[in-house]
C-alpha cells in the first residue's frame, strides 16, 4: 500500500472524534510555548528560584516598606545611635536588623533599596543588549553578503575588547551614573546575542515558509519580524534569562571598583566595597549585601537553567 495522502485519508474517518488519552481527556494540540511552560512548571528548582526572583523584585518595588518598618530612611546617618563610641559600625540588633555601616546607616534598609539598582540595571541593560543583538543578528543573517560581513566584523571587534577595562575607562571618563552604567553594559553585551540569532536566521531563511511569505509579496521587514523572529525567540529568551545575572554581577563589579552610582545611593556592589575595609571588625557590613547579591544571581541562574531545559528537553538537565 502506498502512503500517499489519498490512501491515508481513506484510513482516517474525518468525522471520527479525536482520540482519547488514557486518562479520558481529549488530546489537544499544544503549542511549543505551552509545552515549555508545562515542563518548567514541573521543574521544582526552577519554580523555587522563580519565587525567590519574584520576592527580590517585590523587595525592590516595596523598598520604602523597609523604611516604614524600621523608621530608618536609607541615607540617614545615625552617628549617635548607629555607631559604637569608637565610631565603628554596630552589629545586628533589634534596632538595626542587619547592623549599621561606617556612617551609621541602616544596612537592612540599604540592602532593600540596593535591589532597585541591581534589578534596574540587570533588566534594562539586558533589554538593550538583546534588542541590539536581535536586530543586528536578524539583519546579518537575513541580508547576508556585505551587510553580514560588516556586522560580523563589528561583532568580532566587540568580542575582542577587554570589556571590564574599557567599561572602567568609559565610566571614569564620563563620571559614574545610572544611565552610563546601563549603556556601557548594554553596548558590550549584545554581540553574543547577535551571533546566536544570526546562526538561527541563516538556516531559517532557506525554509519554505519564508519562500511562501515572499511569493505572497511580503516585504523584507515583514519576513524578518513577522515570519522569522518568532522562530528565534526561544533561544533568545533562554539567553536573556541567563544574561541578567551576568549583567547584575558586572554592575556590582563596577560599583565595587568605585565606578557604580555616586553616593549616597544604596548599591550592593558599592556597599560590599565600603564593607571590605571593615571586614575584620564588622562582618555584617560585608556579609549582608554580599548574601543579597549572591542569592539574586543564584536564583536567576537556576531559573535560567530551568528555562533552557524547558525549551530544549534534550539538553542535559541539571537538577531534576
Amino acid at each position, binding site marked *: 500500500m502506498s502512503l500517499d495522502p489519498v490512501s491515508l485519508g481513506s484510513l482516517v474517518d474525518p468525522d471520527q472524534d479525536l482520540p482519547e488519552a488514557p486518562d479520558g481527556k481529549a488530546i489537544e494540540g499544544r503549542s511549543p510555548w505551552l509545552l515549555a511552560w508545562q515542563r518548567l512548571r514541573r521543574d521544582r528548582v526552577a519554580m523555587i528560584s522563580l519565587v525567590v526572583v519574584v520576592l527580590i523584585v517585590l523587595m525592590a518595588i516595596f523598598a520604602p516598606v523597609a523604611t516604614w518598618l524600621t523608621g530608618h530612611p536609607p541615607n540617614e546617618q545615625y552617628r549617635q545611635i548607629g555607631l559604637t563610641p569608637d565610631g565603628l559600625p554596630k552589629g545586628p540588633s533589634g534596632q538595626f536588623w542587619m547592623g549599621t555601616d561606617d556612617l551609621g546607616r541602616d544596612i537592612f534598609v540599604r540592602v532593600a533599596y540596593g535591589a532597585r539598582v541591581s534589578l534596574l540595571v540587570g533588566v534594562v541593560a539586558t533589554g538593550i543588549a538583546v534588542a541590539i543583538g536581535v536586530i543586528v543578528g536578524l539583519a546579518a543573517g537575513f541580508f547576508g553578503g556585505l551587510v553580514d560581513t560588516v556586522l560580523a566584523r563589528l561583532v568580532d571587534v566587540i568580542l575582542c575588547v577587554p570589556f571590564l577595562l574599557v567599561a572602567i*575607562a568609559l565610566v571614569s571618563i564620563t563620571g559614574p551614573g545610572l544611565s552610563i552604567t546601563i549603556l556601557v553594559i548594554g553596548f558590550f553585551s549584545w554581540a553574543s546575542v547577535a551571533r546566536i540569532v544570526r546562526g538561527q536566521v541563516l538556516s531559517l531563511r532557506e525554509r519554505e515558509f519564508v519562500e511562501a511569505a515572499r511569493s505572497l509579496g511580503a516585504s523584507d521587514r515583514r519576513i524578518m519580524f513577522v515570519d522569522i523572529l518568532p522562530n528565534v525567540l526561544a533561544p533568545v529568551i533562554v539567553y536573556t534569562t541567563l544574561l541578567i545575572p551576568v549583567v547584575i554581577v558586572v554592575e556590582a563589579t563596577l560599583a565595587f571598583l568605585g565606578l557604580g552610582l555616586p553616593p549616597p545611593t544604596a548599591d550592593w556592589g558599592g556597599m560590599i566595597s565600603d564593607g571590605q575595609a571593615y571586614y575584620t571588625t564588622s562582618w555584617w557590613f560585608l556579609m549582608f549585601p554580599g548574601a543579597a547579591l549572591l542569592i539574586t*544571581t543564584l536564583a536567576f541562574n537556576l531559573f535560567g537553567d530551568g528555562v533552557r531545559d524547558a525549551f530544549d528537553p534534550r539538553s542535559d538537565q541539571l537538577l531534576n
Partner: protein
Amino acid sequence: MLRFLVRRTAQGLLVLWLITLVLFALFFVVPSNVARTLAGRQASPQTVALIQHRLGLDLPLWRQYVGWVGRALRGDLGYDYYHQVPVTTIIAAALPVTLSLVLGAAILWLVIGVFNGVMSAIHPRSFLDRSLTVFALFFYSMPSFLLGLLLLYFFYFQLTLAGFPLFPAGGYVPLSQGVGPWVDHLILPWFTLALVSAAIYTRLTRGSMLDVLGEDYIRTARSKGIAERRVVTRHGLRSALTPVVTQFGIDLGALLGGAVVTETVFSLPGLGKTTLDALNQQNQPVIIAVILLASAAIVVANIAVDVVYAVLDPRVRLH
C-alpha cells in the same frame, strides 16, 4: 593555513587600530586636567600651559595620535605623566604579577573543572553529579570580588584569629624571593580566580563528555574489551576536550590583560590594578598601552584557538 594566519593577523591589527582610535577620541573629548594636577594648586596659567606643552597635550588630536602611533611602532609607548617612567617599564613590572596570578589559576581551574566534569559525565544523574552541578552553579553565580573577600575573611582573618596565620592579607612576593612565599601570597587569589572559572569548565566538560560518550566509536572501544578507565581517558576525553581548549584560550587571553578584580581585592600590583590606578589619575599613556596589550592578548588567543582547533580536529578546515 598560511593564508588563514595572514588574514586573521590583518583582521587582528585592524581591531587593535580601531581600539587605539576610539581610546584617543574618548580621552580627547573629556577635558584633561592632568597638567593642572601636575602643576599644583598654586600654579599660574603659564605653568599649566608649559606643562601641557611639554606633555604634547596642546597639539591637535591628530598630531598627538600620529606621533603616538609612530613611536608605538618603534616600541616606545610613551611616558607615565606623573613619574616620567617609560610605560614599557611599568608594564614590565606589572606583567610578572599578572602572569603568576593568571597562569597559576588557569592550571587550577582546568584541573578542577575537567576532573569534576568527567566525574559528572561518567555518573550522570548520580548524587555526585548533582552535588558537582550545585557546586558549579554556586560558584558560577558568585561575583569574584565577593569570593575573594569571603576567602580573605575565612582563610586569612578567621584562621589568623584562631592562631593559624597561614595566609597573608594580600600583596605580592616575586618568585625570586622563594617559591614558598610566592605560593603563599598567591593561593587565595588563585582560588578566587579559579573557582569561578572552574564552574564554567565543569559544565562545559560534562556536556561535551556526555555527547562524546554517546558516540558509536566509544561503544566500539568498549565492545573490544578495553578497560573503562582507558575508554574514558583515551577515547572519550581526548575529543571531548576540544570545546574546553577553545574556551581556555579565550579566557586566558581575556585575563592576561589583567584580572582587575582579583588584583584589587588582594592588592596585587598586576596589569589590572595598574590600569585602575592609571584611570584614577587620568594617566593616559598607561591606560592606552595596557588596554591595547589586553586586546592584543585576546586577538592572539583567538587566532591560537582556531589553529589548535584545526590541529585537534582534522575535520575543521581553516579558510
